[in-house]
């Protein structure tokens, strides 16, 4: 392992400011003269607004303006970024998504009005004085009955079904036939529980308007400021890009929830223009629960057909996917292209058919959350495999091994449209069995029994499609955006480098890892490289950070730009040494003429570029700055195998995680320490989903688990020290760094391991329980044990 550059565990340079309290988050920004906004949000799930009286509120102290839906009737609604086409060739149903409610509210938290005042408390006081004449309507909550008919979330759509998607539709009959004739079919019905993202930093938006130049600035907690500028500027407020700047400074975690364009961003930008004062909104935690897009929320039936040897013959899966009340930015792609395409997993199942019905309900919109579709695919597949193994009396590792795609079979085309470029699932499973000490399980189980506890072991594999994504492909699939990434590499006159990237770092450590790549390519020290991101005014157009794409796509763009830099620098060096550029070699920050002792340093070449006294000006521009856009040729396919050991207390149903081991193949690894951290965080979130987290709505559409008093987040003392390994590396074949991405793996791979472990413990303990829906809270486990 190297001590610098690619492969080094360089310490996170951003931690110096984060850990010393010097991070600059959006809420740390205060614009002179700013006023504060408070949103009056619906406290009912579904209702018709017969009137809004703002008269008394408008006259209250400090109030600068009150806005209702009427003030936004002329601007566009929040756009959905992905159009899904249904089984019958029809476009999905796409309802309006207003900034402020237009005549109807559709979920608890839906913004009805907004008050802008001198202080936040004044804004809240005034909001309480707004009189809303609301006619409450029945709440549409259960997806299956919502599809069957009854009350409509959007009257104009005449249905609550957004789309009925089939994939691959041409395979449907063959899959049905294979399942009908199979030796054995294992069926599992399950719920993938709805989650609240709960980034540590709640969302914030500040709109600022410079009337003298007609320029708007939005400071916002975003994972992708360029995307927000495009969506909000072009589709909502009609502000051209050169008059709109979007800044996402330090962001305290996103996990997907800060990808999307939210109403509050458009509101603050427009209110600042109308009032000609800066307008600031900071979400409270309670507000975050009912306004940040939620994650998951699938109800699924999966069937796995096997032959007498346990070979997978076919998979058929039917899912109801909750869209919530409106289509959030990428909501429609999550249960389809990020979910259905992953149903082959790590296995050679020849026939697969996926049906997804996306449904509107009176709940907060649901969109991508760490893993986005891939955790839902992995969970159902790895759970049904475990159930099949138990039904057939097979070992859960052996049944997986015998169905693995083998190393020599790559590139491997799955029946669900993906082509995996590379992988070695046998090697990752071998490594897992080693690091998890699976041979010692029986001895540990015996110790647990002496304490009156049931010990279980859960195993699963996962694959994900990351490095999102080839633009031409996703365009065919309905994406309304390209998914390339960009980088400008600016070499300064004395040789230091500033990289401007379209990616955004909100926990991913770009400021540390991106310099490692450039330092490696040029042979300078990492501290000579600075990463700039998050401001549309000084970074090239890029699509941002999600889908484990930053290093695989953004890093690749940076490599391409750096290659251009090196090519030009070689020409300058050739001129200085009176040699041919083809004969110049760059090593350890020094250019030399091959076969001679002539050399010139990196710094001298850079200075020459900017002080071009002795310079081939007739052939070469001065300066040293290059931009590259990189559009990937394929997804990347990180894969791995996870093992979880639990102890279950049969008297209380409490589950303790004793150990968790993860082997991941991320291809090449830039910074092993950072990758460890990403996996740790992902596993913590996956364990949270498996055991604790649950956004629970009652039948009236009230979010019952709407605070941390009832929404259970995983804490450090709930988790063991993880054992993680990423030494099994099959480098990606189509990007210049051979990297695959690591941000989501832990959250994708861990929930089935935990659930499989609990069920293993119960069954080994003599309790015949085939499934428990997440979260496996003590009461649910106890109820399963006690019938």
């Amino acid at each position, binding site marked *: 392992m190297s001590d610098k550059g690619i492969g080094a565990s360089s310490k996170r340079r951003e931690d110096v400011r984060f850990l010393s309290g010097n991070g600059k988050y959006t809420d740390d920004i205060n614009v002179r003269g700013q006023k504060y906004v408070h949103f009056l949000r619906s406290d009912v799930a579904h209702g018709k607004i017969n009137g809004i009286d703002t008269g008394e509120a408008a006259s209250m102290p400090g109030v600068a303006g009150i806005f209702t839906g009427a003030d936004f009737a002329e601007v566009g609604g929040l756009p959905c970024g992905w159009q899904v086409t249904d089984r019958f060739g029809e476009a999905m149903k796409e309802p309006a998504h207003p900034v402020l409610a237009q005549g109807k509210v559709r979920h608890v938290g839906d913004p009805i009005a907004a008050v802008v005042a001198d202080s936040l408390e004044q804004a809240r006081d005034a909001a309480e004085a707004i009189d809303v004449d609301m006619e409450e309507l029945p709440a549409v909550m259960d997806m299956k009955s919502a599809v069957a008919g009854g009350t409509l979330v959007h009257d104009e759509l005449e249905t609550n079904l957004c789309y009925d998607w089939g994939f691959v539709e041409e395979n449907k009959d063959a899959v049905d036939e294979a399942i009908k004739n199979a030796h054995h079919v294992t069926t599992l019905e399950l719920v993938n529980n709805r989650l609240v993202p709960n980034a540590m930093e709640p969302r914030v938006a500040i709109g600022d308007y410079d009337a003298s130049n007609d320029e708007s600035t939005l400071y916002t907690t975003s994972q992708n400021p360029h995307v927000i500028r495009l969506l909000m500027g072009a589709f909502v407020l009609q502000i051209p890009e050169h008059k709109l700047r979007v800044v996402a400074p330090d962001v305290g975690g996103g996990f997907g929830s800060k990808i999307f364009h939210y109403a509050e961003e458009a509101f603050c930008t427009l209110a600042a223009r109308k009032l000609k004062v800066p307008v600031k909104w900071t979400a409270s935690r*309670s507000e975050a629960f009912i306004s940040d897009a939620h994650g998951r929320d699938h109800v699924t039936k999966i069937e796995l057909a096997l032959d007498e040897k346990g070979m997978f013959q076919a998979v058929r899966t039917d899912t109801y996917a909750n869209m919530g009340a409106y289509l959030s930015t990428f909501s429609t792609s999550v249960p389809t292209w990020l979910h259905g395409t992953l149903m082959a997993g790590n296995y050679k199942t020849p026939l697969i058919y996926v049906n997804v019905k996306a449904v509107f309900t009176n709940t907060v919109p649901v969109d991508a959350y760490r893993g986005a579709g891939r955790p839902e695919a992995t969970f159902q597949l790895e759970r049904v495999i475990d159930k099949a193994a138990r039904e057939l009396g097979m070992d859960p590792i052996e049944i997986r091994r015998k169905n693995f795609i083998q190393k020599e079979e790559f590139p491997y085309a799955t029946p669900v449209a993906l082509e995996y470029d590379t992988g070695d699932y046998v090697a990752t499973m071998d490594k897992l069995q080693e690091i998890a000490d699976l041979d010692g399980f029986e001895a540990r189980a015996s110790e647990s029994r002496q304490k009156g506890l049931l010990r279980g072991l859960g195993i699963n594999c996962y694959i994900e499609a990351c490095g999102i994504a080839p633009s031409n492909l996703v365009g065919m699939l309905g994406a309304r955006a390209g998914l390339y990434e960009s980088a400008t590499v600016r070499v300064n006159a004395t040789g230091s480098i500033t990289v401007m990237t379209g990616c955004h770092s909100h926990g991913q450590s770009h400021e540390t890892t991106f310099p490692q790549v450039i330092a490696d390519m040029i042979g300078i020290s990492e501290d000579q490289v600075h990463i700039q991101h998050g401001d549309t005014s000084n970074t090239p157009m890029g699509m941002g950070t999600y889908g484990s794409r930053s290093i695989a796509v953004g890093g690749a763009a940076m490599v391409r730009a750096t290659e251009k830099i090196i090519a030009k620098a070689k020409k300058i060096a050739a001129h200085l040494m009176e040699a041919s550029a083809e004969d110049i070699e760059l090593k350890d920050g020094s250019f030399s003429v091959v076969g001679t002792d002539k050399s010139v340093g990196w710094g001298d070449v850079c200075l020459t570029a900017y002080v071009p006294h002795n310079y081939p000006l007739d052939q070469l521009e001065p300066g040293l700055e290059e931009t590259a856009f990189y559009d990937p040729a394929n997804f990347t396919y990180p894969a791995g195998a996870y093992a979880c050991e639990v102890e279950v207390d049969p*008297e209380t149903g409490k589950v303790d995680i004793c150990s968790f081991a993860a082997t991941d193949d991320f291809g090449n690894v830039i910074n092993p320490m950072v990758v460890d951290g990403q996996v740790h965080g992902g596993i913590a979130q996956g364990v949270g989903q498996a055991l604790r987290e649950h956004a*629970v709505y009652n039948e009236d559409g009230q979010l019952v*688990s709407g605070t941390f*008093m*009832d929404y*259970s987040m995983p804490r450090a003392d709930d988790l063991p020290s993880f054992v993680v390994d990423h030494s099994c590396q099959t480098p990606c074949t189509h990007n210049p760094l051979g990297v695959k991405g690591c941000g989501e793996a832990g959250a994708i791979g861990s929930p089935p391991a935990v659930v499989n472990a609990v069920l293993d413990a119960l069954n080994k303990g003599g309790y015949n329980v085939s499934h428990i829906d997440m979260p496996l809270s003590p009461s649910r486990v106890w109820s399963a044990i006690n019938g």
Partner: protein
Amino acid sequence: MYDFALQRPQSLNEAIEALSVEGAQALAGGQTMIPTLKNRLASPDVLVSIGGISELQGVSETDGTVSIKAGTTHGVVAATVESYPALASLAGNIGDPAVRNRGTIGGSLANNDPSACYPAAALASNASITTNKRTISASDFFMGLFETSLDEGELITQVDFPVPDAANYQKFDQPASRFALVGVFVAKYGNDVRVAVTGASEDGVFRWSEAESALAGNFSSSAIDGLEVDPESMIEDIHGSRSYRANLVKVMTKRAVAAC
């Protein structure tokens, strides 16, 4: 929060005086009060902070009694009480360090949250709760959810716990809040055994008299085996059904006895 006036009396008498005004509300450690205010669920005109009153601070242990002044924080109780380890341990497992460094025993008892820990200790120990007016036996103090026998403007000043021969508190955490989903405090005084249960009942903290009788004759966890808790009056919510809580009452009681 809504606007309010803040008063910081330096003596008990000043505090009582301040609280006699209409619309005045006492503020002890604020671990319930402050979130309530921030959510605009309370609107006192005057908040009377009693945190600065030195005569409400401190722990003393004499002749088989632990006396805790009402303004003493959980953290101090956890760190200083020596003769009643089950009580110190209970205090040391309330909330997190921030809560323990602010929250007070008087505030907790006066609030009588049905999932709080201290009411179980007070009831199982038959603690004496002294106010500026009188002394109330714990058996007469807790009147149901968030209800106590305190009058308007009456302040708890001190709580006296008789030290038992043996005691243990078993708390099963509600997964999110880490309040007691069910907490059982068992205290043994000679042949007299008291079992107080928090977190479980819709009527707040209660004594499980069947368990007390069974344990008086046979102080071992097996004495509980044949008993059942009636689920009827148990709390039911997303963290557990009535039956589940009834089961936890039994399991936690057995574990508390076994740990005594």
